[in-house]
């Protein structure tokens, strides 16, 4: 269970889409949280309480399935050191109809931000002059 939901390297959304596809699905809404960069930020460090994350994730998915008419949910979170532009988290929701997919995907990321036992810390740039 745990191995599916945490990733130590950047991952493919196309592969996640392939994973959830089934004939009933007519709409897929995907949310990706991405490391944002500015002059002082060179990346992000992500710490996860793995065992609790895996269980919390199942609770979040069940809550979404009870509340919305959806056919599939897939969530992957990165851990460790991330560079600017890399995916921190990806949430895919497949449904027959798009409204339910949008609602469920936004519900999941809102809940995840509030409840998932994950901590982020900015890595700051320490540029070394090499010339």
């Amino acid at each position, binding site marked *: 269970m745990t191995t599916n939901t945490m990733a130590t390297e950047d991952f493919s959304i196309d592969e996640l889409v392939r994973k959830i596809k089934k004939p009933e699905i007519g709409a897929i809404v995907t949310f990706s*949280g991405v490391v944002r960069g500015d002059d002082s930020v060179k990346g992000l460090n992500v*710490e996860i*309480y793995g*065992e*609790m994350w895996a*269980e*919390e994730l199942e609770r979040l998915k069940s809550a979404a399935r009870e509340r919305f008419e959806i056919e599939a949910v897939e969530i992957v*979170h990165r851990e460790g050191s991330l560079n600017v532009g890399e995916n*921190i*988290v990806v949430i895919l929701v497949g449904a027959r109809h798009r409204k339910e997919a949008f609602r469920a995907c936004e519900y999941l*990321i809102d809940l*995840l*931000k*509030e*409840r*998932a*036992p*994950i*901590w*982020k*810390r900015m890595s700051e740039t320490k540029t070394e002059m090499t010339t």
Partner: protein
Amino acid sequence: MKVSVRFFARCREIVGEERKEIEIEDGRDMLLEDIITHLINEYPDLKREKLLISRNHKYAKPEERLEDMDEIAIFPPVSGG
């Protein structure tokens, strides 16, 4: 009875350890908040943090009663996603 306490993020830094095993006299009733109080006494910097607490991988209330082999965790507000 024995419980295990895990620390994450800023709490881990304050305590300087990822995990502590805590022995509790058998027969003594112990609430989650008793453990927290005990830890704050030992590491006063924890008092400055807003602490979240889980017990056996679920968010927990301070008044929950501890059981043998419980896994407690203490951490600052989460920021996933």
